[in-house]
């Protein structure tokens, strides 16, 4: 006669060892490399799970265990909510040849009621799973990476040619907090390249225009408009709440402030610049690589500074460079791949050439050099000549 479930469970208890939460805790604290497997269903795990535990629902356990623990001698603790499903789970593992499996008596509920530590996993909502499904398919992103993106805080210095495309894609990618810093208002001549703005926003602050476009694309993120001109007085306060600074500025005084604050606050500075058909991209993050001042200790003096009348840029070019900055930003957040720290990509659009140059930290750099004491911020003067004063 077939056994009742009660009889089956007591038969399994004869074959499968159980351990109390206190015993499991003692083994884990004793330094044993225990593999903890939470066999509950997805919605149960959302309330929390044991630290270091891996969630494999009971139905997938046998199918996935070999990837997690190829060695059949691995010490494994299976647990569920109250200790019944984990008995069945442990028996299933024994059938696969695992010799050292226990089921945690009383399960997660007893573990928690006895005051043991629990971690609540960050979960993606169903809406996020749909929106970011193409990210979730990539092993380098996946759930964990998308959660990192959603938790990341990136400051865009400038909502102009570089900042617009970078911000647009970072918003699309689900970077959870985007600070947009700019003091300027939208001008008709911006629209040739600054794709967050539009004709009906001419005269609107760029920060507000950017916020509206970014939230229209992705209402699930937080956009912080910061309508200010960066100076030595506000740079530290503005930067301190962000993880990564993306420099999309258009002048030397700002670039040096961005660099110096990033050095001081140990934040990665994703750097891009453009001129006509040429672009440069790198990531400054000493001591792994140089800072901007290792490359260019001081800005050009006024007599060698150009006139703004010389300015000009192919409208598409900051798109390319801004998006390279966005890619580097996402990689930094994910911790994926090789960042551009210590390398500079030089793009010549006319030649259709990308070249990579090596950048090295200057150990004698006044800002990031060995043992350097922060020399303070410098408010360089804006030395772009007034075009009207330039004789033609």
């Amino acid at each position, binding site marked *: 006669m077939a056994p009742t479930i009660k009889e089956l469970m007591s038969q399994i208890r004869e074959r499968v060892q159980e351990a109390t939460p206190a015993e499991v805790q003692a083994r884990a604290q004793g330094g044993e490399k225990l593999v903890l497997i939470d066999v509950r269903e997805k919605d149960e795990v959302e309330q929390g799970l044991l630290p270091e535990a891996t969630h494999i629902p009971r139905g997938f356990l046998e199918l996935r265990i070999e990837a997690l623990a190829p060695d059949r001698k691995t010490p494994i603790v299976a647990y569920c909510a109250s200790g019944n499903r984990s008995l069945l789970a442990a028996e299933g593992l024994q059938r696969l040849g695992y010799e050292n499996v226990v089921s945690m008596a009383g399960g997660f509920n007893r573990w928690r009621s006895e005051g043991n530590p629990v971690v609540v996993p960050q979960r993606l909502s169903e809406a996020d799973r749909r929106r970011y499904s193409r990210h979730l398919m990539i092993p380098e992103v996946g759930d964990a990476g998308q959660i990192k993106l959603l938790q990341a805080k990136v400051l865009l210095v400038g909502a102009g040619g570089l900042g617009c495309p970078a911000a647009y894609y970072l918003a699309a990618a689900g970077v959870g907090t985007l600070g947009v810093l700019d003091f300027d208002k939208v001008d008709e001549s911006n629209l040739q390249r600054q794709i967050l703005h539009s004709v009906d926003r001419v005269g609107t602050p760029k920060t507000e225009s950017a916020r509206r476009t970014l939230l229209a694309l992705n209402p699930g993120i937080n956009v912080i408009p910061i309508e200010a001109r960066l100076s030595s007085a506000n740079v530290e306060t503005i930067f301190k709440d962000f993880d990564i600074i993306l420099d999309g500025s258009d002048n030397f005084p700002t670039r040096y402030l961005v660099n110096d604050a990033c050095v001081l606050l140990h934040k990665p500075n994703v750097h891009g610049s453009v001129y006509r058909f040429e672009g440069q991209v790198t990531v400054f993050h000493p001591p792994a690589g140089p800072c901007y001042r290792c490359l*260019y200790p001081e800005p*050009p003096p006024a*007599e060698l500074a150009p006139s*703004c009348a*010389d300015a000009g840029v192919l409208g598409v070019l900051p798109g390319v460079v801004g998006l390279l900055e966005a890619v580097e930003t996402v990689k930094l957040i994910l911790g994926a791949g090789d960042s551009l720290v210590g390398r500079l990509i030089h793009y010549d659009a006319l030649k259709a050439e990308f070249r990579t*140059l090596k950048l090295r930290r200057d150990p004698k750099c006044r800002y990031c050099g060995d043992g350097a004491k922060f020399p303070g911020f410098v408010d360089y003067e804006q030395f772009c000549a007034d075009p009207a004063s*330039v004789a033609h």
Partner: protein
Amino acid sequence: MAVTVKIPTPLRPLSRGKDSVQVAGATAREALEGLERECPGIRARVCDEKGEMRRFVNLFLNDEEVRHLQGLDTPLKDGDILSIVPAIAGGMEAGLAESRRGRNG
């Protein structure tokens, strides 16, 4: 040694628009002297009065900055590529661009 010097956009008015110039020279310094003969006025944009590299301009030999090699005394070999890489601020300014003094003069 025959080497190629890559000219950044802001200096191309001095190279008659050319993005690279072939010069001869056994060292980086000699190559810059050769470049000055081809493109008069360019050296002053890249080097200071003492003949050293300006601090807002870098010179790369292939993919290495010459400062981390032997500076302007770095020896060259046939086929080397020297790249002048100025600090570029953004769409508005670029170090090295035609100076106000130059334009007014």
